[in-house]
């Protein structure tokens, strides 16, 4: 069966510091991978998605970047965090060759920028 991991679970960072959040998927090959941000327990905003190694699509202009160095690894980064980067970050995967249908979510990372 497939599983998805995210770490860290919680992170408190000062403004201006760098960020690296990691997401890994097990039990599937060549998944589509996604990064979302969720504010105040409400809807999800898609930040980035990837259909393969080194292939990243950005949905909204922002202070963040994403990378996919391996097939089942997706990393969310920032060089300098802003207060507005605080939120709950969710990684998700979906079966390969589809940018649609069901997505399966990780447990999330809560980021607080002070």
């Amino acid at each position, binding site marked *: 069966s497939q599983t998805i991991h995210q770490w860290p679970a919680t992170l408190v960072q000062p403004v201006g510091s760098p960020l690296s959040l990691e997401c890994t998927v097990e039990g599937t090959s060549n998944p589509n991978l996604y990064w979302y941000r969720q504010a105040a*327990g409400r809807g999800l905003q898609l930040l980035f998605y990837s259909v393969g190694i080194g292939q990243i699509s950005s949905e909204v202009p922002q202070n963040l970047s994403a990378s996919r160095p391996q097939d089942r690894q997706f990393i969310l980064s920032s060089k300098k965090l802003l207060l507005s980067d605080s939120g709950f970050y*969710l990684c*998700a995967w979906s079966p390969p060759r589809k*940018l*649609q*249908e069901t*997505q399966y979510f990780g447990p999330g990372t809560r980021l607080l920028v002070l």
Partner: protein
Amino acid sequence: TQLLEQSPQFLSIQEGENLTVYCNSSSVFSSLQWYRQEPGEGPVLLVTVVTGGEVKKLKRLTFQFGDARKDSSLHITAAQPGDTGLYLCAGDSYGNKLVFGAGTILRVKS
């Protein structure tokens, strides 16, 4: 831009009551998913509906996809405290990325 509007935004009910959550759009979706999310955790898929007019049941939960595939509803019968959470609908528009509604926060009091 495709939008999914969920209503109500917040619902607080007593254990045993029935409730319905709605998800509406002016866009057509090839499928629609419902997720439930508990605080501090990722959303968990409840159901996917694909065919216009489709009705799916999951124990006390009934999901319906509108005939025109623009809307969906989630009905919970005899709600229990364990049903408490954030309910999210998400639409898949023929190969585009999932579009999520803003969610409905449900609180079931015992």
